[in-house]
């Protein structure tokens, strides 16, 4: 009885505080601190979640969230929690294989049994497919909802993850040569490095600079070039090349594979002295710093630019930055609409001491209004509706400098990115259209899209034939590979096969890097055949067979969910 009254009072308090009112009874609710481990937020930061997002959580529910550090090798950390037999209250799970471990250990709370406390999950049409799929196929055959998917919703317009970028100023200086195919970048970049051999500070400039600390089963920064030709080398399996255009899948180590071409590409770059010799031994942070200093000519992720773009793209004297220059024959991978979400999840620990608070929190996190709040900040502070009723960003300064502590103190302070940063993903996709009629995230509002582009963007758009955005150019020229969410419907391999995959992975990583730095072409070929022979001896064919069958199944299954 007491509980009911309290929750009624609380519900009232929440509503009032949301509308800006102050309610004295709020103080009656006890403060709760939940612990959390969010694998998908790759950060070394830990402790109580702070900033304006955390303030909102506290104001709404009187909950504080204490986050454990993640950083690299989160998989090992999850296992340590599992071995210890205790998970933090809120768990973000990165990947179905990791989620399966936790489910098999029976350490997650079946959320469907608490459906009445999770109306934002179970009563939202938008999540229905995702929940159904999770109960049917990713619940270890229990039919329960242990893991709640994230990023559910439509594809975002003009948000390609894999885009070839070149340093704009140098590219202009060498006469903007036409790039017809992947290998042409070598010639262009070579000229660009000749034009700009060192930075103004005298540091050496490289054409290409890679890193190895994200490698799992293949040399990831190398294999990832495949996405520029519509070939997935990550979601289905890092040992498979799944072409989302032809819907065919084949082994990464086949003799005619794209991976070999990518290795050859970087091998060639090294032969010409364009590849950073540290590529094999440095980390992402090192490379990011090199990009920031303008020391790398070529980037392969649309976001991998360090701070070089924000420093230079509006510098009228010398417009610079990493700009998209897409080769004529490329078809950039476009993430699929995800009615079942992607394979990052949120879950609650079974041993959670304060289940009610944890459920409240999860319900809060999947509330579309909260998601919008965390993505865009509070209305009147960072954004508002203009005279036509369209949302627009009031203060681009805060948004553009998203890592700087510019949010006003009275709403909790912190940086703009602090809203989503701790979770790295939310329930709905950023491009989901909310009740307001506009997308969840400011990034796809009409006012944002028509916002004055930077000087560099203007020049780049000019080059692409006077378009407004990269997507416009790509679609007009049939250069997009629209993916299917079948890539997210692959059942993880069995334990024994998983061991085979990791054993092959160790071989592939080692020899791939050796191939890139091989002395000559003969050695390159020799290393390739050693690698493939050893991989075959370890059971590569079984792996290929398994994933080929899984892919066929996924292609059938996806029809129900599209």
């Amino acid at each position, binding site marked *: 009885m007491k509980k009911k009254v309290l929750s009624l009072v609380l519900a009232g308090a929440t509503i009032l505080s949301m509308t800006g009112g102050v309610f004295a009874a709020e103080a009656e609710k006890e403060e709760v601190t939940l612990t959390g481990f969010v694998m998908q937020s790759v950060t070394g930061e830990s402790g109580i979640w702070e900033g304006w997002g955390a303030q909102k959580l506290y104001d709404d529910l009187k909950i504080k969230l204490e986050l454990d550090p993640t950083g690299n*090798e989160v*998989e*090992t950390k999850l*296992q*340590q929690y*599992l*071995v210890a*037999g205790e998970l933090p209250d809120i768990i973000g799970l990165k990947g179905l294989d990791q989620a399966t*471990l*936790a489910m*098999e*250990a*029976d*350490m997650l709370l079946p959320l469907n049994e608490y459906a009445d406390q999770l109306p934002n999950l179970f009563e939202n049409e938008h999540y229905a497919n995702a929940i159904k799929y999770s109960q049917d196929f990713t619940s270890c055959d229990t039919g329960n909802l242990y893991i709640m998917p994230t990023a559910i919703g439509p594809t975002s317009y003009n948000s390609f993850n894999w885009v070839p970028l070149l340093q704009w100023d140098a590219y202009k200086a060498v006469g903007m040569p036409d790039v017809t195919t992947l290998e042409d970048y070598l010639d262009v970049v070579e000229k660009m490095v000749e034009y700009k051999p060192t930075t103004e500070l005298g540091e*050496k400039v490289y054409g290409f600079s890679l890193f*190895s600390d994200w490698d799992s089963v293949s040399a990831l920064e190398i294999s990832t070039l495949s996405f520029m030709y519509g070939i997935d080398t990550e979601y289905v399996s890092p040992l498979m090349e799944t072409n989302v255009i032809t819907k065919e899948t084949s082994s990464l180590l086949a003799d005619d594979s794209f991976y070999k071409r990518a290795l050859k590409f970087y091998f060639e770059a090294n032969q010409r*002295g364009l590849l*950073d*010799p*540290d590529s*094999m*031994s440095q980390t992402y942070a090192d490379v990011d710093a090199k990009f920031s200093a303008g020391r790398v000519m070529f980037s392969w992720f649309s976001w991998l630019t360090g701070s070089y773009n924000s420093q230079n793209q509006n510098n009228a004297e010398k417009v610079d930055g990493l700009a998209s220059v897409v080769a004529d024959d490329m078809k950039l991978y476009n993430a699929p609409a995800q009615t079942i979400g992607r394979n990052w999840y949120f879950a609650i620990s079974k041993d959670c001491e304060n289940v009610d608070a944890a459920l409240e929190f999860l319900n809060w996190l999947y509330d579309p209004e909260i998601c919008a709040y965390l993505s865009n900040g509070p209305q009147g502070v960072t954004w508002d509706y203009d005279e036509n009723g369209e949302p627009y960003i009031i203060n681009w300064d805060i948004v553009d400098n998203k890592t700087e502590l510019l949010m006003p103190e009275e709403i909790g302070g912190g940086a703009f990115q602090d809203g989503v940063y701790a979770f790295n993903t939310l329930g709905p996709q950023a491009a989901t259209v909310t009740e307001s009629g506009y997308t969840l995230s400011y990034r796809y509002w009409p006012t944002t899209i028509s916002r004055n582009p930077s000087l560099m963007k203007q020049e780049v758009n000019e080059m692409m034939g006077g378009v407004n955005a990269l997507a416009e150019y790509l679609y007009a020229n049939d250069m997009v590979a629209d993916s299917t969410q079948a890539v997210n419907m692959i059942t993880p391999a069995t*334990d024994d096969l998983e*061991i085979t995959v*990791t*054993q092959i992975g*160790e*071989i592939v*990583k*080692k*020899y*791939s*890097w*050796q191939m890139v*730095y091989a002395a000559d072409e003969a050695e390159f070929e020799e290393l390739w055949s050693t690698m493939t022979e*050893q991989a075959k*001896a*370890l*059971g590569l064919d079984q792996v290929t067979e398994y994933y080929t069958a899984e892919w066929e199944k996924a292609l059938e299954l996806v029809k129900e969910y599209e």
Partner: protein
Amino acid sequence: MQKSKKAKSPRQKAGFRLFLLSAPFLLGILIFSYMPLLGWSYSFFNYKPGRDLFDCDFVGFKWFIAPFNNPVLRMQFVRVMSNTLGINLLYMATMILPMIFAMFLMEIPWKGYRKLVQTLTTIPNFISWVLVYAAFFSLFSTEGLLNTLLIGMGVIKTPVNYLTENSHMWLKMLGYHLWKGLGWGAIVYISAITSIDSEIYEAANIDGAGRFQKMWYITTPHLLPTFFVMFVLQIGNIINNGIDQYLVFSNAMTQDAIEVLDLYVYRYGLQQGNISYATAVGMWKSLVSVLLVLIANTLSKKIRGSSIF
């Protein structure tokens, strides 16, 4: 007569007291050295983290055979074993160096300088391998001191990443090992030298022995027993050469030459989450260790007539 036989002799009484005195230590050893052996049971199951061990499938010797059931894995295991033994044999071959170092150090007449040298050579022992790597990284990486110097002097044109050079890896590892451990290893010999009766040296002086003769005929024989004890102890550790040194210096180029058993267990077992496999390979390791110690002990008994047990 009967009575006195029944009553415990003082020696027996003392024995029980001594047992009580040593009991806490025995208990400690039991808890920290023998209890963990229960963990070996994991190697017989298909252990999944978070589950009760007995809920997991019993797989018998599957994980013990796993490193050998295909040619590539066998090759890897052989490579890893030869790295482990090879690097350790090098370490053992150079075990005499701390002793020689200690002998020469003690010949330095000026105490202040002697202390300075000793301190400076001991300090590296307390620096973790991660920091040691950071230091060597700033020396040898592409933008390190060496490259900057060589380019500045015009010796080379493009920088070389020395950390991915894979020639003479064992010797390089030995170099790092000695740099870090020489001073520390000398301590035990220094204390042994100071405990040598000074009358022996005085007698040698009267007999007209020179400095090197004293070192050779007096100091060396006095240090040899210490050396042999250290040597046999090291053999027990031969397969146990730790992981951090190799982990920090390992990359795709150097890995083949420096992946030692502990690193292999870490990489394939713990990092990939296969705890059962890691346990089984770790048990192989114990087996080889025990064998080696027994061999060394027998050799020591045959050659020198004394042994540890």
